[in-house]
């Protein structure tokens, strides 16, 4: 170990250390959980926030971006949450059940707990669970995410979240929307565990509403997909925001199971959406999709590690990015195939469409293969709108702006259509149009 010279803390790092001192009495947890929180804060104290000299954050320098750290948001006022929920509806008329997390904590009063219980879904508060005997297990991280700075920030400060359990064989008739509301300014740090038991099927929607001022959002979703279970998670992050948006998914996929996710991002100033996908059982499929839009000085980062630790699993990764202005897009995707993970089939593609000269895309797809009998491929493209296509549309009377919009929609549609889930994704065209119109 190199005897490290203590780093000089940035304002944000000092703020975070102060925040921990101020909040630690109120942050829930068993003795083991408190130890994990202390260790996570030490990591921040010793190494600082993740920055560009940390390989995984080469393009996404959180340390340089975060000028300060607000205190944690206070408990949400229910009527304020209601007002925000009444105003936003990312999925329109889609029939669904709702679970509400506000200012980092579960709000049972606004969640459809009875209906969910009727379908075999139990929902409990992470805050309560962390204080319990098995609390520390809820903060476990996979090997591929060890020492991750964003995850450490979450562990240190996690205020609450939910533990959702879908019972064996239950096929939930409607999608379940896990909506995160920022009802007032301040850091909003939550973590949720979603367990789908054997043979069960869940479609999850993850949405976010409200303003946080200069408070960062840091949310971890920890999915546990049991043997023969199926989980489809659609994450929708739309709208402008100034402070950092940090999202982490951890997925553990059992045997003969299905996992599919779409991360749809349009508008935040600084976002990292990182996923750690782990195949733990054979003959399973994962489809990881991403649609990202960024403009002005925005930075949007989709980072992904898929660990094929067992044989006979398929994974498909398909990411689309549209950049305008001086925005920067990042895609870092790695497929690891362990030595004995024979018959792995992995296919990763990342494509960027640059609407301006100054936009910039960092595409980094990687394969790390130790098995010899696998089919793995990756590809990356980056280009502009095809002028010949644009001319064809205009020659039919479609004005330039609308023609460009159609071509952007067409570009993104490839990933959205392959993802499927038409009832869930049909509203996304309107979100793309909103973004193109500058909202």
């Amino acid at each position, binding site marked *: 170990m190199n005897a490290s010279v203590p780093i000089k803390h940035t304002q944000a790092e000092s703020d975070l250390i102060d925040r921990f001192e101020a909040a630690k009495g109120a942050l829930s947890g068993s003795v083991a959980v408190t130890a994990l929180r202390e260790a996570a804060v030490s990591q921040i104290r010793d190494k600082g926030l993740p920055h560009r000299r940390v390989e995984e954050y080469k393009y996404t320098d959180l340390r340089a971006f975060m000028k300060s750290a607000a205190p944690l948001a206070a408990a949400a006022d229910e009527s304020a949450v209601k007002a925000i929920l009444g105003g936003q509806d990312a999925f329109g008329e889609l029939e669904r059940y709702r679970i509400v997390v506000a200012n980092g904590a579960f709000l049972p009063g606004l969640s459809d707990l009875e209906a969910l219980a009727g379908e075999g879904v139990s929902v409990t508060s992470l805050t309560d669970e962390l204080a319990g005997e098995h609390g520390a297990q809820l903060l476990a991280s996979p090997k591929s995410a060890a020492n991750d700075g964003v995850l450490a920030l979450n562990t240190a400060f996690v205020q609450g979240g939910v533990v959702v359990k879908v019972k064996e064989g239950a096929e939930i008739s409607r999608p379940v929307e896990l909506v995160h509301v920022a009802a007032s300014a301040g850091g909003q740090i939550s973590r949720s565990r979603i367990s789908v038991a054997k043979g069960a099927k869940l479609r999850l929607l993850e949405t976010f509403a409200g303003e946080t001022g200069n408070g960062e959002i840091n949310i971890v979703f920890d999915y546990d997909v049991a043997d023969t279970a199926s989980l489809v998670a659609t994450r929708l992050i739309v709208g402008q925001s100034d402070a950092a948006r940090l999202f982490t998914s951890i997925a553990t996929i059992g045997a003969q199971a299905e996992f599919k996710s779409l991360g749809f991002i349009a508008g935040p100033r600084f976002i990292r959406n990182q996923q750690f996908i782990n195949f733990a059982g054979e003959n399973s499929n994962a489809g990881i999709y991403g649609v990202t839009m960024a403009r002005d000085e925005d930075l949007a980062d989709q980072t992904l590690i898929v660990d094929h630790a067992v044989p006979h699993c398929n994974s498909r990764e398909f990411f689309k990015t549209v950049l305008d202005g001086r925005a920067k897009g990042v895609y870092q995707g790695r497929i690891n195939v362990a030595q004995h993970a024979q018959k792995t089939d992995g296919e990763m593609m990342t494509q960027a469409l640059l609407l301006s000269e100054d936009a910039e895309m960092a595409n980094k797809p990687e394969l790390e293969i130790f098995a010899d009998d696998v089919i793995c491929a990756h590809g990356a493209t980056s280009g502009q709108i095809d002028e*010949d296509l644009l*001319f064809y549309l205009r020659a039919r009377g479609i004005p330039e702006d609308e023609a460009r919009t159609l071509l952007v929609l067409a570009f993104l549609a490839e990933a959205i259509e392959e993802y499927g889930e038409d009832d869930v994704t049909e509203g996304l065209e309107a979100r793309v149009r909103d973004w193109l119109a500058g909202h």
Partner: protein
Amino acid sequence: MLEIKNLHARIAEDETEILRGVNLTVKAGEVHAIMGPNGSGKSTLSYVLAGKDDYEVTEGEVLFDGQNMLDMSPDERAAAGMFLAFQYPIEIPGVATMEFLKTAMNAQRKARGEAQLSIPDFMKRVKEAAGHLNVSMDMLKRPLNVGFSGGEKKRAEILQMSLLEPRLCVLDETDSGLDIDALRIVSDGVNKLRGPDRAMVVITHYQRLLDHIVPDVVHVLSKGRIVKTGDKDLALELEKNGYADYVDAAA
């Protein structure tokens, strides 16, 4: 309806001059054929009329109903009634054909200050036009031109033309890639649109299309100029003797 006067145009990128003084007047109700060897500038002329900015007009003018068409954007030209059936229709993955048709028709109507089409009215028009051109519903469900055979693409172009009801139709080698049956279907589609208020410029390399779409006037374009103008018999003569005489004449 269309007046092209001393039109000179070059490729914007490398400034190669392609059109070197084209003069052409087409009146409402007339069908003009433009024939000529490969590389003579036929497609370039059609693109310049449609407003593609790969080409730069260096001299001359183009009037459409007396209006300077060169000042208009491609979509304004389309809304004003100009239609180009492309020699090579482009595949646009991700854009559904029906959605495209509806967007184009309504965009033109909007530009002209007309009401938007209702969905049933739109569907009725598409079904009717598609029926005449033997365009299947299955084709219409696919993304625009994607996976269409050469002949299907050409039929889709004429379908668009029928639905958009332009007043000036420019058809660039619509016959290429068509077998005899498809040629008849496409020609019938085009002939249906002939009328006293509509003008057509039919560009073709071969005479056989002109058996079906009988032109009022035939021009020969060579090296960027119209070097001969005649009636439909000129096409027959070209079929027999080839373009050799005219290539030399233009040199």
